[in-house]
């Protein structure tokens, strides 16, 4: 395949779903079948192009054209493809297709399905634009459009009173991070005179250490927002108010993956900025453990999965922090498979039971065998049970962190921190995944709806079953030298004795949860957490902190500014007007005189003028 054809494919990758989205948005009253066909065709088209590109793209290929000139700053529009990019594009296309097909059945009785399907297409297009973008401004377009799509889709469900607030929160928290992202990109443009990624990466030596640190830290703010990293992670669990397929889309292949992907893509900048890497390491270490701990005490099945996403993205950030973008991308790919599977399978459970609360589930494995087995595969992959996908990619991260202690772009302590947190998190992950598995599928049914569970329609089970294949097997790609080279590794995964440490931790987590449940199959293992349970369920009250530190001060300030604007700034204007009016009235009254007084005043004036004139002449003559 020629380079030209490859770059043309790169342009088409976002263009196909974008056009489909545009058609769908213009026809909000299109019949369901048309809307579904459009959505599925858009995602399938993108997937097809991505697969072809994945089979052919080996080195970096690039094409770019002038988009706009602002003064002497050129902005380009182009694609920059490398194997890592097209692999991610395949994951995006596959998850989007699964979500589109699944949604047809999941939203069977929703009268706003047509705009929904179009928005999913737009979301896909935006993510693909981020993936292929050759220019930072162009990347920013995809980046922010994704944000607005998440806003629209999270707020889709009109029956949930919390949905609008969750949607606004998702957009605003990420937008706050994006202030930094925009400033970082702007600084790059100002310092290097270009926004093209290739030229920016080539220009790294021209930047001073201070500039690099500032730029990378600013970019990290945007990454933390999009990828839900501490302290900007608070929007993601609330985003569960969106329909379940949307959760799968946001958590698996788009949005949260974008931040990690962008750091990997711009890693040339980060490698030269140890301060930024150390910051990322701290963020990652906190996020991993915090997300996993919060997942332990959630009552809602989707919120467990949401917190697990926070934690797993923390792993990817950790891999980036210790200097291994390939390990981060490998985990991104396996995570895309198993997290999409988990959400879609959870959607099947919710579809059957009619609630998100695990307290009303139990014993579902008999009525829903397909969902049970696929979910088992997904959870085992999440936990990292060998030989499922998550095992290989997570192990790779733990081993690069271990190796990074001695030599890596990040400080040694940062690598230590990432490693320690990663290993501890493995145990916690084992615990909460086992809890979810047991609470949902085993024991007696705890609610009326759980007594007669049923499998969902075929359109929902087929995508889930298909996603189980990569969830189980994608890890073996780690043994294929060709795949690993193209992803950026120096060679295939090698299994060492150091592997036993995380495996021991997995076993500890799983066995503890099982043992707690075994003592009393009806009760929640989370009760063993005691008073900590509440703290974890509230995720260390960080929402309240955010509210007290940011939201309320801004609202108070806004009220004060409005008052000031109305009473002081405008008040001065109004007072001037009133003052002028009052003065005029005063003067008017002064001139309102009876004839004798008026005549006297005129005469007095004339005399005054005369005196002045005479005096002037006298002085003038004297000079």
């Amino acid at each position: 395949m020629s380079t030209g054809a490859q770059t043309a494919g790169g342009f088409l990758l976002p263009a196909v779903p974008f056009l489909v989205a545009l058609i769908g948005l213009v026809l909000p009253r299109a019949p369901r079948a048309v809307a579904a066909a459009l959505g599925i065709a858009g995602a399938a088209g993108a997937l097809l192009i991505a697969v072809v590109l994945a089979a052919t793209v080996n080195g970096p290929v690039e094409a770019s054209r002038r988009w706009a000139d602002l003064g002497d700053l050129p902005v380009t529009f182009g694609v920059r493809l490398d194997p890592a990019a097209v692999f991610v594009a395949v994951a995006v296309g596959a998850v989007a297709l699964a979500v589109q097909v699944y949604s047809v059945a999941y939203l069977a009785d929703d009268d706003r399905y047509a705009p929904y399907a179009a928005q999913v297409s737009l979301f896909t297009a935006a993510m693909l634009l981020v993936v292929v973008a050759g220019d930072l401004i162009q990347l920013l377009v995809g980046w922010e459009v994704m944000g607005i799509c998440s806003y629209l889709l999270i707020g889709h469900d009109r029956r949930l009173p919390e949905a609008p607030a969750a949607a606004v929160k998702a957009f605003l928290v990420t937008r706050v991070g994006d202030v930094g992202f925009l400033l970082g990109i702007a600084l790059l443009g100002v310092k290097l005179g270009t926004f093209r990624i290739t030229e920016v990466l080539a220009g790294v030596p021209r930047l001073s250490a201070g500039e690099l640190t500032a730029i990378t830290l600013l970019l990290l703010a945007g990454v933390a927002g999009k990828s839900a990293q501490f302290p900007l992670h608070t929007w993601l669990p609330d985003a569960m108010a969106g329909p379940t397929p949307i959760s799968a889309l946001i958590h698996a292949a788009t949005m949260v993956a974008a931040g990690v992907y962008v750091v990997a893509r711009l890693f040339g900048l980060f490698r030269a900025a140890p301060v930024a890497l150390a910051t990322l390491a701290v963020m990652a270490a906190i996020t991993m453990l915090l997300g996993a701990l919060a997942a332990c005490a959630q009552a809602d099945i989707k919120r467990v999965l949401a917190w697990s996403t926070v934690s797993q993205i923390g792993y990817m950030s950790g891999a980036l922090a210790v200097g291994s973008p390939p390990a981060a991308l490998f985990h991104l790919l396996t995570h895309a498979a198993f997290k999409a599977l988990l959400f879609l399978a959870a959607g099947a459970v919710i579809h059957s039971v009619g609630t998100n609360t695990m307290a009303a589930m139990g014993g579902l494995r008999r009525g829903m065998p397909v969902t049970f087995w696929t979910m088992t595969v997904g959870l085992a992959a999440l936990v990292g049970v060998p030989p499922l996908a998550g095992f290989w990619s997570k192990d790779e991260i733990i081993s690069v962190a271990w190796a990074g202690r001695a030599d890596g772009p990040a400080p040694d302590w940062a690598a230590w921190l990432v490693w320690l947190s990663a290993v501890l998190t493995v145990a916690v992950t084992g615990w909460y995944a086992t809890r979810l598995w047991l609470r949902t599928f085993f024991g007696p049914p705890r609610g009326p709806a759980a007594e007669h569970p049923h499998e969902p329609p075929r359109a929902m089970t087929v995508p889930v079953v298909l996603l189980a294949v990569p969830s189980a097997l994608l890890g073996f790609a780690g043994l294929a030298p060709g795949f690993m080279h193209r992803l950026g590794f120096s060679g295939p995964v090698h299994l060492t004795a150091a592997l036993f440490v995380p495996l021991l931790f997995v076993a500890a987590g799983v066995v503890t949860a099982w043992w707690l449940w075994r003592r009393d199959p009806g009760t929640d293992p989370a009760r063993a957490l005691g008073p900590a349970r509440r703290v974890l369920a509230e995720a260390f009250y960080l929402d309240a902190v955010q509210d007290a530190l940011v939201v309320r001060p801004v609202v108070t300030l806004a009220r004060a500014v409005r008052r000031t604007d109305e009473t002081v700034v405008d008040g001065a204007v109004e007072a001037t007007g009133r003052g002028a009016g009052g003065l005029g009235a005063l003067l008017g009254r002064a001139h309102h005189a009876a004839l004798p007084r008026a005549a006297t005043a005129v005469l007095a004036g004339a005399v005054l003028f005369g005196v002045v004139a005479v005096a002037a002449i006298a002085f003038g003559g004297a000079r």
Partner: protein
Amino acid sequence: MNSGQALLVATLALPAVGAFAAAAVPARLDRAGRIAGTVAAALTFVASLLLLSHGTPGGTGPIRPWHELNQPWVPGLALRFHLGVDGVSYPLVALTALLTLLCCGYTLWKVPEPGRGRLLVALLLVIEVGILGVFEALDLVLFFVFFEIVLLPMYAVIAVWGGEERRRAARKFVLYTLFGSVLLLVGVFVVVSKAGTADLIALTGGAGLPRGAQLFAFTLLALAFAVKSPLWPLHTWLPDAHTEAPTVGSVILAGVLLKMGTYGLLRVGVGVAPEGARWAAPVLGALAVAAIVIGGLVCLAQTELKRLIAYSSVGHMGFVLLGIATLTATGAQAALIGNIAHGVITGLLFFLAGAIKDRAHTGLLPELGGLRETAPALAGLLGYAAIASLGLPGLAGFWGEAFAVVAALRRGWTGLAVVAALGAALAAAYFLRLLRQVTHGPALKPLAQPRLAGAELLSWGPLVVLALVLGLVPAAVLNLSADAVRALAEVVR
């Protein structure tokens, strides 16, 4: 007279003739008068589009008009009737002609209380003459004359067809901006008497003006244009005027009338007194950023729909003024596309706000709600316009705001750039709050007419399309002005 000159004259003569025709029609033929006015507006728009075709502009001066008309006007005072368009003014000329056409067309369908739509159309056309004249004038005195023509018809539009508080708002508008005009008059007088010419082409670059005169002139001019733009803290006429004006009045006010201020600042203020501009730039930049943040915060605490959009204009014009204040080519380009984007998007927002207020009979946010249940199409368009207005990349509003920040960074104003970027996040906050209150949640009251009328779609459609097209193809505007801005940046430097 060649065809370009004829078109220049046509853009002023057609609306003037249309205004007379519309006003002269007797009251019982009100609709015929509105049609006549709309036809004139359409012809003006066609003429403005035809202006686009031009050869390579001649001359080496800082302003190289595509088309130029230079006739003696008052020989005794050496005043000339000197018109022209170039890349800086052309996009604004086209935008003015388009918005006036859309407003006249809208008036065919709906006339606000107390009726007499033909007079409203006539006034809109007179305003168009003034605004187009401002953008086309290449003589400083002529510029001032056109600048003043706009004032009284706009006063009448607000005072006759406005909301409940219309008289007070109209009086405030006219007195406040008249105060600005006085300063402009003095500024023009200073420049013309010191330099001995009123020709803008000759004046641009500050030739012949001593430094002291430039500082004085720029202060006066900048204050005058700051009132019009408006720049914080000289903005308080705007929320009242926008809120009380009828829908078409708000659209013209926000869409193009404010641009007279930013255009004047760039072309006359910066162009004629570059030394003064360099001296005052940091203050201007700081005030612009203050406008962005204060506008955003006020919006966040605002409870009335049209007032909120009016205050959001203060913030958006802050970005435009920030771009101009940087005195860089990047900043000027950002300001120009920001001007156009704001005209398109805020014009659309005011159309939508008017439609909502007409249907719900209230503009108070707490009393609105559930619009996506009662009028999904209207809610969808409002969402689109709000998203465009908050500067989403890919839509028109992004370019001006993002590159104003870039230009500020380039100028070395790191602090201002950071605060301005935070202002962009504030814009997201208040627009999403607006959408949440107006479109989400349960429907609070039934709407008078949930569906969109064909006339509404026709008059909003072009703006909807432009907001997307300018976002995807910003070069459509930027390429027009690239040379002109480069020439200006060279003389300012």
